[in-house]
């Protein structure tokens, strides 16, 4: 691993892993406790439509993905709020349409589509320095907004009805959350790819949730776990010559399964030490 660090792409990859993990820990926590994993998946896949748009009209596909995923987030948020039933069906439809639109647009684009697969399966080893700056900016936006609206985000996550009675603008805060998910998803696309976004978004947070007693601690712990998993996955993929995104997911998944086994043991030790 140390000798690998002499390569610029490896340093960028490690940095990208850290930057993405921070967003993942914070937003993943909100996704897990709000039980909106499915909506997050929908946003991620709809983003592919934006990538297709970028290819077709010859602009940066990441920009297209940002616009598309935010639009999908707003659309799904509205659907979820207005129609009480069948929201999951409509979200599933948007998920599929976004994806299909992206594929068709890419088909219609002439020429060689070099890194198309990288959006699907991730290409953390090919993150240019410019993208690191975008990731850093997105991280700062996410941290700032979550810090500013922390008490409202906690309130709508825990008890939306009570938040409404307390005159919290519940719909607006929910929409903000979905847009933050959209931004996070676009960032993560680079690292693990669209298809595995949900896994990296949820697993560190799910592990953290078993041990953290409040939301802030869960976010911090999930971020730290994310850094560990991406770094370990990156190192494994480098030394074993495996696909980086999938390796990161398998490392996270293994840790998650282990945490399920270890949780009962650890909580027994904790309750004994706490008396």
């Amino acid at each position, binding site marked *: 691993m140390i000798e690998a660090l002499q390569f610029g792409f490896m340093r960028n990859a490690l940095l990208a892993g850290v930057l993405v993990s921070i967003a993942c820990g914070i937003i993943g*926590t909100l996704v897990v406790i709000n039980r909106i994993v499915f909506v997050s998946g929908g946003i991620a896949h709809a983003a592919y439509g934006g990538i297709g748009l970028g290819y077709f009209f010859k602009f940066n596909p990441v920009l297209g993905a940002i616009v598309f995923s935010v639009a999908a987030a707003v659309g799904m948020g509205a659907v979820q709020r207005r129609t009480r039933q069948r929201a999951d069906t409509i979200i599933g439809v948007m998920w599929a349409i976004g994806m299909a639109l992206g594929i068709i647009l890419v088909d219609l684009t002439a020429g060689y589509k070099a890194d198309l697969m990288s959006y699907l399966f991730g290409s953390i080893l090919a993150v240019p320095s410019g993208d690191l700056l975008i990731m850093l900016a997105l991280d700062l936006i996410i941290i700032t907004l979550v810090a*500013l609206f922390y*008490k409202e985000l906690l309130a709508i*996550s825990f008890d939306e009805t009570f938040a409404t*009675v307390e005159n*919290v603008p519940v719909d607006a805060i929910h929409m903000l959350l979905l847009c933050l998910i959209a931004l996070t998803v676009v960032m993560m696309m680079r690292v693990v790819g669209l298809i595995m976004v949900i896994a990296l978004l949820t697993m560190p947070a799910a592990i953290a949730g078993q041990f953290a007693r*409040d939301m802030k601690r869960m976010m911090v712990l999930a971020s730290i776990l994310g850094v560990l998993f991406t770094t370990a996955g990156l190192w494994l993929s480098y030394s074993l010559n495996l696909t980086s995104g999938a390796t990161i997911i398998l490392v996270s998944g293994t840790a998650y399964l282990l945490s399920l086994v270890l949780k009962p043991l650890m909580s027994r030790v904790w309750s004994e030490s706490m008396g």
Partner: protein
Amino acid sequence: MHRRETTETAREVISVQHLWAGYEHEAVLEDINLTVKELDFIGLIGPNGGGKTTLLKVLLGLVPPMRGQVHILGGSVNEGRRHIGYVPQSVEFDRDFPITVWDVVRMGRLGKRGLLQRYTAEDNDVVAGVLRSVEMLDLRHHPIGALSGGQRQRVYIARALATEPEILLLDEPMASVDPLVSTSIYELLGRLNDHVTILMVSHDVSAVSAYVKTVGCLNRWLFYHGERQLTSDMLEAAYQCPIDLIAHGVPHRVFQEHTVVRPGSPQVEEVRQ
């Protein structure tokens, strides 16, 4: 804090006139008229699906009325609900939700602190105060999922009190607690009633205790005329099967608990024999 008695001249805090409400064009409440006066402690009972929760949701502005007028403290519902402390029915609950008792109760301060405002030292004082009043201050750092049903109910009451309400609305407050705990919660509510108006709904006839000042029945229609005891007429009208209730001995318990308040009542004597 001196005790103010509820009298005929007491201020109206909730006024409901000819209210119809429900979901998807189907009314579950019809022509409800209800006047709640300051420092009332009203217990409304009725069967499940009788519209109890819907009535509370209308009072909280969560369900819009189809017809009729609702006023809280003389104003609109959305304005008035800032003075209502709401204790929801605790059915759906995620035990793994990462939140401490302290953070749950502090949500009661949300109405006082708008967007982009931080909780203040005053908020922390209020939260500590209400937690002390429900005897939960020692458990403030515990995750909410680690509490028993009765403890959790106290936390929700504390959260409602943290809003510094004039009115407390409670939805099935004794649903998930055992009888011993419910007695202690009633004692708490009785103390709170010295300065807060309380309206409580429950499907359980035995939930009406000595601390409740007046009772009524709700099952699509409201049968409430400020009575101190449940009458068989009210129960019959609301439940439409009086024999079944008496067979279970439920009214017995209700009358017996009223012995504390009104020992001279002839009905009580009758039940005791």
